[in-house]
């Protein structure tokens, strides 16, 4: 029951992101979607990931998006332009795209149908490991290299973003 609630929030938020004309509403819809995903992580017994999702994604990355939208004063997409050039209004594109989507959905359904052992719940076979201490231990021993590379990545991204967004003093 809770699964459907959170899943519905996530999907609804994602749909709103893709369909809203005002970019500020898109960002807010995505934040709503992240809350749904966070609830799903709690259901999957990963409370740390759930809270970190809120802190990092909804609390930092989306603030970055919102700042950019506000600083650039992004205009709403023009409704007339939208109607004229939107791919969904082109019949050939709709047919091919719809056909491919149907094919993909059928393939996924077939793959899931044919896989054994999908009936039970996610939590049946192994007990959950949700303690933060265990996460930290594995992160700093088995995934040490990836962790260090990630820190280099963040520094590079920080420096890059500052340089790219700087105004050229001509």
């Amino acid at each position, binding site marked *: 029951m809770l*699964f459907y609630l959170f*899943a519905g929030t*996530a*999907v609804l938020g*994602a749909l709103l*992101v*893709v369909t809203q004309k005002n*970019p500020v509403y*898109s960002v807010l819809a*995505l934040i709503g*979607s992240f809350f749904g*995903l966070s609830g*799903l992580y709690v259901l*999957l017994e*990963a409370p740390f*990931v759930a809270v*970190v*999702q809120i802190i990092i*994604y909804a609390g930092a*990355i989306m603030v*970055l*998006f919102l700042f*950019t939208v506000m*600083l*650039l004063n*992004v205009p709403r*997409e023009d409704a007339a*332009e939208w109607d004229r050039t939107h*791919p*969904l209004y082109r019949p050939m594109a709709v047919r091919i795209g719809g056909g491919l*989507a149907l094919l*993909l959905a059928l393939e*996924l359904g077939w793959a*899931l149908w044919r896989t054994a052992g*999908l009936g*039970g*719940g*996610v*939590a049946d*076979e*192994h*007990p*959950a*490991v949700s303690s933060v201490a*265990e*996460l930290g231990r*594995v*992160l700093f021993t088995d*995934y040490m290299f990836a962790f260090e590379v*990630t820190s280099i*990545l*963040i520094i*590079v*991204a*920080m420096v*890059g*973003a*500052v340089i*790219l*967004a700087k105004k050229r003093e001509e």
Partner: protein
Amino acid sequence: MSIGHYLVLSGVLFSIGAAGVFLRKNLITLLLSVEIMLNAVNLAFVAFGRQLGTVDGQIITFFVMTVAAAEAAIGLALVIGLFRHRESLNPEAFTSLKW
């Protein structure tokens, strides 16, 4: 809830994100759709991690989130630079190198 539910949800979210990348004519909404795709992948990782009873799924999620943060920062910096150059956020305004 079986793993199938979570995978179907992940697939649905991923395709909504992909549809957003293809259909939207606004650079920022495009980046948001990419974020949706990354989140769908995160969900699949955590679901599989839970099913196998290990903690690896959650750890990979951190790396995905970090990469998404770095990519969002650089992407938005590029968008700001592009906007200053062309005063438009429509990807079709940046097709000068097209054949």
